[in-house]
């Protein structure tokens, strides 16, 4: 998902002290944890990683779509895409604010991204080669995000859950605008249909990988589940995504590029193939098609914006001094 490979460490049963047991008992009762409440260090650390990684994903996620703002096919599409990319910036900000309540400064969070210490979702390391990719991202990537994020509106940490409520409301617009781009292409010329199919072919597997490694390869998610900062397993969410998306592809008249895909009447779900997990781990390790370009763009934006941040502070200090003197 937007937060891949973040799983809490599994503590030994004996390692839990009285406060930790009281904390977990609170979670069991469904009590929401707020920033000033006592929490185990590992909970704080895991959540800081999870929320900030989610924030980084929103911010880096502006880049692939931003690539098409100047070349959107109409003024209306351009206005819609601008609004969408602006939402992603907003999502990043809600999430950074939520992460900061855990005691790490915004600067430290951003520095972790820019220095390469922090991760962001693997999906944003793929290029947007055609306008149809903008449609595929809204439809598939934001569709996957909704599936992951709706449960998080009920997660145990208040500031994160509240940020998710706002974000989920806005994601629906993103998914629909993406589907609408795809639909328009699919109703167009044979070349436009081919563009839509090509985008689905390239974005399907990276979207499937967004949910993270198979459950068998995520041995640490038990703690995250107990702490209610992860509510469903990677595989359960992935299945939900496939079940929801395949009929949408059918409605568009597009073919999902998975030869193993078939309806399983017994399970009432689709069976589907395995993505190339080696590719996933390579992208997570920094060797995807656009990792260097994405991080480079963020570093450049941060450095080139430094004078603005400094000037704004200097201006504020000068005005404050003037007010004090008056």
């Amino acid at each position, binding site marked *: 998902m937007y937060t891949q490979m973040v799983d809490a460490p599994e503590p030994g049963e004996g390692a839990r002290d009285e406060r930790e047991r009281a904390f977990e008992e609170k979670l069991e009762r469904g009590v929401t944890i*707020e920033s*000033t*409440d*006592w929490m185990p260090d590992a909970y704080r650390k895991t959540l800081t990683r999870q929320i900030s990684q989610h924030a980084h994903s929103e911010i880096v996620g502006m880049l692939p779509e931003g690539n098409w703002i100047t070349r959107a096919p109409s003024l209306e599409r351009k206005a819609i895409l601008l*609004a969408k990319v*602006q*939402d992603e910036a*907003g999502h990043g*900000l*809600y999430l950074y*604010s939520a992460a*900061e309540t855990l005691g790490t*400064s*915004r*600067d430290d969070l951003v520095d972790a991204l820019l220095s390469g210490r922090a991760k962001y979702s693997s999906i944003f390391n793929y290029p947007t080669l055609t306008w149809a990719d903008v449609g595929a991202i809204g439809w598939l990537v934001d569709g996957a995000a909704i599936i992951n994020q709706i449960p998080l509106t009920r997660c145990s940490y208040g500031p994160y859950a*509240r*940020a998710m409520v*706002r974000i989920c*409301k*806005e994601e629906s617009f993103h998914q629909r605008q993406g589907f609408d781009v795809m639909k328009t292409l699919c109703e167009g010329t044979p070349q436009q249909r081919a563009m839509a199919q090509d985008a689905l072919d390239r974005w399907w597997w990276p979207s499937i990988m967004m949910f993270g490694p198979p459950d068998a390869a995520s041995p640490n998610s038990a703690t995250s589940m107990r702490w209610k900062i992860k509510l469903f397993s990677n595989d359960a969410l992935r299945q939900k995504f496939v079940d929801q998306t395949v009929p949408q592809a059918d409605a568009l008249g597009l073919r999902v590029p998975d030869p193993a895909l078939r309806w399983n009447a017994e399970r009432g779900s689709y069976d589907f193939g395995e993505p190339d997990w080696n590719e996933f781990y390579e992208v997570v390790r920094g060797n995807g098609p656009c990792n260097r370009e994405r991080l480079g763009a963020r570093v450049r934006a941060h450095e080139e914006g430094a004078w603005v*941040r*400094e000037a*704004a*502070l200097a*201006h*504020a*200090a000068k*005005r*404050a001094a003037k007010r004090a003197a008056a």
Partner: protein
Amino acid sequence: MSEANAAAGRWPLWEVFVRSGSGLAHKHVGSLHAADAAMALQHARDVYTRRNEGTSIWVVESRNVVASEPADREMLFEPAESKTFRQPTYFTVPEGVKHL
């Protein structure tokens, strides 16, 4: 705090309150960083009111918010829980008696 922020080149943190419609109270919606009050208002408008969420915004620098301590929760709020006679439902009303 804000002096330390300025020295470190950091924009201070502000809390944002939005009135969602006429007749309603301002409600806390989140926080953001800004160099000064005018910028905080501008950012609040961009970040928190893109979809008709508000008709008015308050911003206050976070360091100026005085909050109760979580450890004092029981001392502060338990008395309200144990004084159920403050609720109208504490009293039984005889059947047939109206407008009570």
